[in-house]
């Protein structure tokens, strides 16, 4: 029954796909695939094929992963992964879940999960899904999403707001400057944006501290990559490009204090060498036959 139905279904699907219109490439691929299958279906003794519902699940997964890859790639620099792609990721998770849970109607042994996930050596669907999961974990995106992972958490929103504000502040002040000042002098930026920058910095530190208190293990010590990267860019701009954070270096008092402390042991050792009484040991003469007496004894004994 199954084998007889296949060509018809494939044709129907082909029509459906062709009707979908603008997306050219997947349709072509699908058509090619189907044609091949149609050809193989006619051959005697061929292998059992995928059931239609499994096929549609697989197609959905393929499209979902394509979309997620596209999103990740586009948002790689500056990093906006978690903000932009969490919808795609969630959908992909759901699709994978439905594949894993789906059971075909024909028989126990031909369910979708088995035929898609574990019937060959490569197991490409599993590999793909693992890759996405690992990437998501490494980016630590869960950290800046809400608990049900729908949308960004409040603190992240707040942080990104502040981040955008400080970026606009930088831009704003630089525009005014670029004309009349040399590019090395950014005092204007430093003065005007100091408040926003400090706020941003404090918020970041606060988030980090909260995060560290919440999670014990080493991995969750990181914030999500978007926030980390945003902060990184800002800090680099601030202290490298604008050269705004100039710490007061007070070398003279440090040298004075340290040389004082380093001088103390010398005084200590000298004074204890000069004033402390050297410990003397009292020698004790052992009670034993003295060597010269010894000789005499031996001589006496043998004489």
């Amino acid at each position: 029954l199954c084998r007889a139905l296949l060509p018809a279904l494939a044709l129907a699907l082909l029509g459906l796909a062709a009707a979908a219109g603008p997306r050219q490439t997947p349709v072509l691929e699908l058509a090619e695939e189907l044609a091949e299958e149609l050809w193989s279906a006619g051959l005697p003794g061929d292998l059992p094929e995928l059931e239609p519902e499994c096929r549609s699940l697989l197609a959905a997964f393929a499209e979902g992963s394509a979309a997620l890859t596209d999103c990740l790639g586009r948002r790689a620099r500056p990093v906006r992964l978690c903000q932009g792609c969490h919808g795609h990721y969630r959908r992909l998770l759901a699709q994978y879940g439905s594949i894993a849970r789906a059971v075909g109607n024909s028989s126990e042994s031909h369910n979708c999960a088995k035929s898609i996930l574990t019937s060959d050596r490569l197991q490409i669907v599993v590999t793909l899904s693992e890759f996405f999961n690992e990437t998501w974990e490494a980016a630590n995106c869960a950290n800046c999403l809400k608990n049900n992972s729908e949308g960004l958490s409040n603190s992240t929103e707040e942080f990104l707001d502040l981040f955008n504000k400080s970026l606009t502040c930088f831009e704003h002040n630089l525009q005014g400057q670029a004309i009349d000042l040399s590019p090395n002098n950014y005092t204007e930026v430093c003065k005007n944006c100091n408040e926003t920058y400090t706020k941003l910095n404090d918020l970041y530190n606060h988030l980090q501290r909260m995060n560290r208190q919440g999670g014990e293990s080493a991995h969750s010590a990181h914030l999500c990559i978007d926030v980390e990267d945003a902060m990184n860019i800002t800090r680099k701009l601030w202290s490298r490009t604008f050269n705004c954070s100039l710490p007061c270096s007070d070398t003279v008092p440090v040298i004075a204090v340290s040389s004082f402390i380093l001088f103390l042991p010398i005084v200590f050792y000298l004074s204890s060498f000069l004033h402390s009484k050297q410990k003397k040991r009292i020698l004790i003469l052992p009670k034993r036959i003295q060597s010269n007496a010894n000789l005499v004894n031996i001589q006496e004994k043998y004489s």
Partner: protein
Amino acid sequence: QLTPSSFLRIGQLSNVDLNEDIHELETEVPRQRPNEIPHNEKLLSLKYESLDYDNSENQLFLEEERRINHAAFRTVEIKRWVICAMIGILTGLVACFIDIVVENLAGLKYRVVKDNIDKFTAKGGLSFSLLLWATLNASVVMVGSLIVAFIEPVAAGSGIPQIKCYLNGVKIPHVVRLKTLVIKVCGVILSVVGGLAVGKEGPMIHSGSVIAAGISQGRSTSLKRDFKIFEYFRRDTEKRDFVSAGAAAGVSAAFGAPVGGVLFSLEEGASFWNQFLTWRIFFASMISTFTLNSVLSVYHGNAWDLSSPGLINFGRFDSEKMGYTIQEIPIFIFMGVVGGILGALFNALNYWLTMFRIRYIHRPCLQVVEAMLVAAVTATVGFVMIYCSRDCQPIQGSSVAYPLQLFCADGEYNSMATAFFNTPEKSVVNLFHDPPGSYNPMTLGMFTLMYFFLACWTYGLTVSAGVFIPSLLIGAAWGRLFGISLSYLTKGSIWADPGKYALMGAAAQLGGIVRMTLSLTVIMMEATGNVTYGFPIMLVLMTAKIVGDYFVEGLYDMHIQLQSVPFLHWEAPVTSHSLTAREVMSTPVTCLRRIERVGTVVDILSDTSSNHNGFPVVESNPDTTQVAGLRGLILRSQLIVLLKHKVFVERANLSVVQRRLKLKDFRDAYPRFPPIQSIHVSQDERECMIDLSEFMNPSPYTVPQEASLPRVFKLFRALGLRHLVVVDNRNEVVGMVTRKDLARYRLGKEGLEELSLAQT
């Protein structure tokens, strides 16, 4: 200057002044001036006595052994296992306690200092941060040093030399007391928190030994509690076995290396060994590391993970790039040579420093001041190094516990601070595992140099602290530097990972300083969790030892020698065959007769000029024509118990009801026998007689006068003797050989040299 006649007299007199610990000769010696010299390494102190590792097989003992049936022996055996399990568990728990407290206190300190530095970096006034750091360190170390200097000085240092001596058979006063344990544990915590260049691993070995000695006795004399259990084990022989188990458990808890622990006991400690004991010790070690592991896992919140087997974990060395190739082995051997030379330099410097300390800084308050100064200087050096360093690394992706920004750009941390602004254990692990490029060569070079001198200066202070971790740290720093320069020279390609070289450097440096071989190889192997490293580590340690021994001996042996401990090495000095027992022995010997007058016994025991501990018992034959042959040997402790219970011949005749003395009475008094002064003997009782034949050891070991020194030495070392009687061919006592008579011969730079005895 004994005349021949005085020599001939010895055999015939039954009651001459006799010896174990040797004191002045009698009046016939003309030069009696007290000879005072400054302390040097060629002395043997009278303070140290031997332990009685040889069982006194007297009648009481034989009777008791006969009474115990087969089943009872089995319970004794089971008790031994139970004790070993308890030793393991308690050692593990103590290690956990130290680890957790150190982690929290040090964390607190570093957070306070870091906040302070962050605050003053912005506003200026970093000198206050420096002062704060130095003061914090100095005050914490002051407390640690005060308790050691004033309450229990034997808790100073790593404790490994002391345990080594104890297992060798030297009784170091107070070394296995509960008080020592408490001081040791607190002292270690305080000195690590105080930021000294020290580790908490070495003292674990001492702690384990004290725990073992305490548990196996079933009582604590310090607390005056007797649990009335394990009474069978109340003697030196049994205690020694448990102490070796405790030392092994300590190593195992410190490094997560149970096999290394067993081998440590075997290599460093055990002069006496058997297979059953090995298996029991291994059991204790395993229990110890497992306890530590499970408790720490629960503490860190992942209860079933079991991921922290030791106080220090070197982390995992199993990634692809951590492997080594055949071509690298000559490089490792070269690192071993460097480690040996640097280790010898370390030891030589420490030798001079220790000598100076013994001679001039012997008052406790001076010692405390010195420790405080070292702590303050350590903080200052760290601060100055961090202040001057311009090596900044991005915070992102690194696992720095306390990133210190200082003059770095925002989002970066000072790389020097990961090395100095951290507990030494963490720094070691960072050096092993931080990705290539985390440190620049300048930072590593300066760090190695500074830390080398700091560690050398710190070891020997009156604080309890170990030398393992600082050595590893120095080695890891120069090893990493070596790895970086190697990959720089070869333009990167194959030997990319400096962590591997850091490990080999650490092994080389540690081997060069402590000169342990087998056990250290296994400890390092177990701590890295990678068996394939066994071969290069072994080569590195071998080279380091050979090179180092060429210059100066190992740190522990050096300190044992500086303490004037009569320590017996594996073998007699090689050129000592020409010496015979007759030249080695002390003579004349104070003997007791088999039935002796109480007054004589009391007089001999209370003679302050000769606090001998073993007395040959000779036949009490009244007529002088017959020779007084050797009948047995009795110990001071036994005599004191006899006097205390007034076991006199006359009293036994008078009162039939008097209880017969049992072995239990001797055990109850062990190990702190009362001094003779505390025993009151009335004038009447002085006239009584005391019969020693039941209590003396009737079969003491003897040698003829012609026995060579190596032969005597072998007997001593193998049997763990305390007294060896020298007899002539008529079985008359001629002399007595004790530990100090043997230990004084040593192979020096110009052949065989003889150490002098001194009162310390």
